[in-house]
């Protein structure tokens, strides 16, 4: 096998995932939250493909493809929501959206 060991890839994926998770937790702009989510999903993709190469099976790659499809649809819905919020002149701040509070 050529190239770096799987562990390196996983390390990169972990850093990406943590960055994304921190972004989701800490940022308040919905746009940035969506971006961070994408980051997390792509970290997962990287890990899947790394494992796929490491084990020599194709399943991880196929799984990564479907994660991309999910990510794309999630972005469509998320961006649609953000556009709708902007149209209604709502503040683009996730902390202001608390109508589900019990």
């Amino acid at each position: 096998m050529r190239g770096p060991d799987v562990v390196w890839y996983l390390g990169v994926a972990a850093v990406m995932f943590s960055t994304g998770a921190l972004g989701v937790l800490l940022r308040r702009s919905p746009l940035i939250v969506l971006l961070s989510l994408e980051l997390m999903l792509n970290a997962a993709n990287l890990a899947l493909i790394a494992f796929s190469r490491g084990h020599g099976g194709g399943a991880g790659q196929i799984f990564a493809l479907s994660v991309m499809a999910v990510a794309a649809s999630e972005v469509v819905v998320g961006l649609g929501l953000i556009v709708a919020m902007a149209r209604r002149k709502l503040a683009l701040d996730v902390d202001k959206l608390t109508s589900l509070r019990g």
Partner: protein
Amino acid sequence: MTEITTAWICLFLPLAATVAIALAGNALGRRAAGLLATGAVACSFVAAAVSFVSLLGHNPSSRSHVSTAWSWLTAGSLHFGLSILVDPLSVFMMLVVSGVGALIVGYSIGYMHGDDEERRYFAYMAFFVFSMLLLVQGGNLVLLLAGWGLVGLSSYLLIGFWHERPSAVAAAKKAFVMNAFGDATFALALFLLIAKTGTLDYQAVFTSAGGLSTAVLALVSLGLLGGAVAKSAQLPLHTWLPDAMEGPTPVSALIHAATMVTAGVYLIVRMSPIFELSPHVQDTAAALGAFTLVAAGLIALVQTDIKRVIAYSTMSQIGYMFLGAGLGAYASGLFHLLTHAFFKALLFLAAGLVIHALAGEQDIRKMGGLRRLMPKTYACFLVGSLSLVGIPPFSGFFSKDPIVAAASARGDAFGWMMYVLALAGAGLTGAYTFRLVFRVFGGEPSGFVRETFDARHGEGPLVMLVPVAALALLATAGGWLQVPGGWSAVSDWLRPVAAPLVEATTSQEALASALSVAAGVAGVAVAWWIYSARRAPAPEPWPELEHKLYFDELYDAVFYRPAATAARLLLALVEGPLVGGSIEGLSGGVRRLAALTRRLQTGLVRTYALALAASLAVLAVVFIAVR
């Protein structure tokens, strides 16, 4: 077999009319509904008459036929067919029910004209006739019980017909509850019969009854007597009948005078083989009848509502029938049932004409002097009254006196006691009946009458007058069916079903007739003295009679109040703390728990995300640690 086919037709025509009126709804005109019901009942009468003529063609010993349509009820080894019994007794009752029924339903077309719910009324009336026919035609005791319950139901529906009046609803409920008590004892008697004989077919029961123990026979006949007493409003289950006068007057005439309340007499005669095996119970029936006829006569003396007077008179006359059936003079009891159906329906319908003309007023203290304003009604009412008192040649004379004579024919002390009571009842009948006649029709028109009576209205439409006239004719001539010492058409007809236990000799008949006519005339004279000639002031009514001998108060104290108190106690001690408390505790607990957990729902997306991330981290740590 003509008589069987026509008997089935007779039974189901009124039911068909009920179903048709109920299904057609507003598509059927009000008048058309009335005509349909009347026509169906009249056709029933024709069918019954054909059955009668056809039975006449048979030998007296082969006049009993059972026809089974299909197997109706199967329970274990018991099979009950939907069957009818066509024999002299049931045909006799069919003729009375459908004949008087047709006249009264026809009269209702005029009486109920303009009521809001005429169609419902006629549907109920036709349904009642069906139920009553089922009662008298049922080929086994189960169908008899079914008819028994259905007449109770239709009586309930018709007493409460004006359901916007609270008093009518209360009266209907009272009638239903008291009848249900009788139904229960009746059903218990049937259970006992099933347990001991394994069948409820008349013939089979009668055949195997001889082998039963005295105690069982006494219990069975007591249960049957309980049903009969409740349905026929005899002491001590009579209090519902006067209240039942809340229903429309034709209902009182048909159900609470002519037919349903006489079902008890029919039951005793039909089950006479059982009653004869327990003579003490049969004597009880006679004694109850005798006491009822005196007590009801006394109460009728002080009532002020025209319909209630006639209602107490009905109780009193059914007392005579019970006396006859209890003494074993079955044909006399049933003959009195027949003539009573004529003259009592006549009295009720004539009273209905008066009530109709006086805008619904029923208080006789406000009436007076109607003789000149309503001459035809007066004539008919007088015929009914004379017949009721038993003045010859009207029908009551021929039918009441044989019952009195039967009491003397029995000969023992019990018989003589019944004799005296029956004669006392005859005197009372004269007094209360003619008190009514003199108060309502005699004298000068009262202020209320002059104010209310509308000469243009007249006595009533033709559709109401014709049935009254027909009944007046029957009340006059009906008695001649059977003349003591002459001929005995009714007794001969009924002999195959219920042969009499006692038969009075001609001299006993003559003595009883003379005494009871004398008593009746004496009663009339007293009423004349007080209410027409006014030679004596009307005596103050005894409070005991005004309170109807305190039966209502007694039942209120013995049954209603303890039950109500117990219910209140249970509500306070069991329902409140235990049932209500546990439910409230449960719901309160859930509510408090929910108040705690809802705090977790902050609505902030980032807290949810943090929770997700944190739990994922915990899970990851756990998995790593466990491995």
